[in-house]
């Protein structure tokens, strides 16, 4: 299939390209940017004048819920939702049932994802068996199956000794470890950021130190083990500062933040709406501003949806009895563009954090828009608007942004040179 994309403003953060140019796609790859290759005959031409063409978005955390939680979502439904959000590559966390700690589970996920064909899926494997924090999972076998990194979710290790060994083993094979640094004891029973809102509502608090104490420990162990580490789902300004300090010391650490953490604060909890129940929790305005600053200056390289779809019942209970998480991957691009609209980030920086940044953090073959690269890209109209929820593809409707009018609209998502989503 040969496609010509006509007249889009092409932004490729990896190369710094930002100009109006035609794109030529052939055999699943980008054949040329600007001038047509010799004897190029397009089978399809997309008139993209007025649109922006960017590399397909790379989302480092999309819970696909399969295997094990099909009432919440499945690989086909959630990757399709991702394509609607402009995503072409995504990582899924190991929290499946059974846990993604064997090559068989990884193969199942990869097969179903290929079958569905909506997005490239790069699984994050479990660092320990059953995520129990005791025995190591077969990391090399998982890597050979296609796992791109290893993490233990919010579950902690049985001991610092076990964690240290896991990091050293991963370092032996140059594997990347994904941390969700939160001290389980300090966060125990907690439902919301420990601050005025949690106090007022009588919700048990999760102090900032739940993140920073764990982060300090993890960074020290990472330094000792010499392992590549990615810190996921940062929630506090102080946490982002600690990452910046580690990077300044020369540690090979990267970080991501959930997009909703850049938009919402714990003030959203005022009516006890369970849609805002997330883990780690929404924190203060100062934390949100600190995270925004860290995204801007590059301490945080990646913005991820941290998409967690749920069935309606999971949210239909008093706040404390509900399951945490927001379903939002299909709004990834327009929701992220609201940060540009608000003046938090400029468009090229935002796109960098959604494409090249995350791809580099986990060394994924994605996030570039250059001749020879896979033809994974998103075409969006920056002048149009998206009414969130007008169409909904994810099985989880647990999204507090439904009903909001968001800036920008995805027109096409292309995966390996074919259209995976069309508005």
């Amino acid at each position, binding site marked *: 299939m040969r496609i010509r994309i006509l007249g889009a403003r092409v932004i490729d953060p990896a190369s710094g390209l930002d100009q109006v140019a035609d794109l030529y796609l052939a055999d699943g790859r980008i054949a040329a940017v600007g001038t047509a290759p010799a004897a190029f005959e397009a089978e399809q031409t997309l008139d993209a004048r007025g649109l922006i063409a960017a590399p397909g978005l790379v989302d480092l955390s999309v819970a696909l819920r399969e295997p094990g939680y099909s009432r919440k979502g499945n690989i086909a439904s959630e990757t399709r939702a991702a394509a609607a959000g402009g995503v072409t590559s995504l990582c899924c966390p190991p929290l499946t049932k059974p846990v993604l700690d064997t090559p068989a589970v990884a193969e199942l996920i990869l097969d179903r994802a290929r079958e569905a064909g909506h997005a490239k899926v790069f699984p994050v494997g479990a660092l320990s068996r059953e995520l129990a924090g005791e025995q190591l999972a077969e990391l090399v076998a998982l890597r050979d199956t296609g796992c791109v990194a290893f993490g233990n979710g919010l579950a902690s290790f049985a001991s610092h000794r076990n964690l240290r060994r896991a990091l050293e083993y991963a370092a032996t094979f140059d594997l990347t470890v994904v941390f969700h640094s939160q001290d389980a004891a300090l966060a125990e029973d907690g439902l919301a950021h420990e601050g005025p809102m949690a106090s007022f509502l*009588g*919700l048990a608090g999760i102090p900032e130190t739940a993140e920073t104490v764990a982060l300090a420990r993890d960074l020290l162990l990472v330094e000792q083990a010499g392992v590549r580490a990615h810190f996921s789902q940062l929630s506090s300004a102080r946490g982002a500062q600690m990452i910046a300090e580690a990077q300044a010391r020369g540690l090979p650490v990267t970080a991501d933040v959930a997009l909703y953490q850049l938009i919402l604060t714990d003030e959203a909890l005022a009516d006890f709406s369970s849609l805002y129940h997330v883990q780690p929790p929404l924190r203060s305005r100062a934390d949100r501003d600190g995270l925004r600053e860290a995204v801007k200056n590059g301490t945080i390289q990646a913005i991820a949806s941290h998409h967690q779809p749920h069935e309606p019942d999971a949210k239909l209970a008093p706040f404390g009895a509900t399951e945490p998480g927001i379903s939002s991957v299909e709004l990834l691009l327009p929701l992220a563009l609201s940060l540009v609209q608000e003046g938090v980030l400029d468009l090229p920086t935002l796109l960098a954090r959604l494409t090249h940044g995350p791809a580099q953090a986990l060394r994924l073959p994605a996030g570039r828009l250059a001749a020879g690269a896979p033809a994974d890209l998103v075409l969006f109209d920056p002048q149009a608007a998206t009414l969130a929820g007008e169409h909904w593809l994810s099985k989880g409707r647990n999204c507090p942004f439904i009903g909001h009018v968001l800036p920008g609209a995805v027109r096409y998502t292309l995966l390996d040179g074919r259209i995976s989503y069309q508005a």
Partner: protein
Amino acid sequence: MTPNDAKRPLQLNDQGQLRHFLSLDGLSRELLTEILDTADSFLEVGTRAVKKVPLLRGKTVCNVFFENSTRTRTTFEMAAQRLSADVITLNVSTSSTSKGETLFDTLRNLEAMAADMFVVRHADSGAAHFIAEHVCPDVAVINGGDGRHAHPTQGMLDMLTIRRHKGGFENLSVAIVGDVLHSRVARSDMLALRTLGCPDIRVIGPKTLLPASLEQYGVRVFHDLAEGLRDVDVVIMLRLQRERMQGGLLPSQGEFYRLYGLNTTRLALAKPDAIVMHPGPINRGVEIESAVADGAQSVILNQVTYGIAVRMAVLSMAMSGQTAQRQLTSESASEEPN
């Protein structure tokens, strides 16, 4: 499901009257005063030979208690009966796994049996809001205590107690002592006192038992009991649960009593006519000395009596606000073109 209209708080109807009673947050001084005035008028009913008024005749009030309670449940039952309502009380034990479903399904079932009002107590903060917003918005929901969040009828009966014994709130110093962190009573009391114009609200306890950001309630925080009690008019003691010792919040009951227990010597630091309150059940020798609990300054049993009157006031006001709202809604619905 009716979404919570940002302009109109969930617990008020279009005319600003109570239709649920979930929390004291957002309620005006006038409304709180109306509750107290109404309760005052109901106190007289309790002294009659026939202790009934027909305000809720033909209505069904369901007490649904997901958490144990004797005093609150009983006084709600008596309040509803004195208003001539039919009363059903359910003690629903909670299983930790299916708490939400139990709550949702239980209330939907009761709603289907044409209950007009729910009095709900639940261990989760926000449970009453959840019911009023998502389960049965057309049934008046009265919060009988939700987690650590609110116990608004207790808050109002405490205010009635203070007003009847002190005449008002304008020149008072009120101290709240003990486990504020886990206390829905303290949160409701702080809100009510501030709304009613109390100029000096003090909170006394160790840091482990005080929630973050107490300043938002406009209170002064003391860690020393003697200092905090100086010249106060009202002392509200809170109950200390035994399990607080396990989590490392306190070393022992003995040490807590030594530091924060109210005895006659310490009470002498307050004004000579200060009153002592406690939401009950009291732990003698843990937060309060028997001589104080049973002494002349104690109004703990008066609180129980006032509790019935306050609950009668809240039940009758919420029922009429809910009924008015239903009429308004059905009128506006019938006006819409087909």
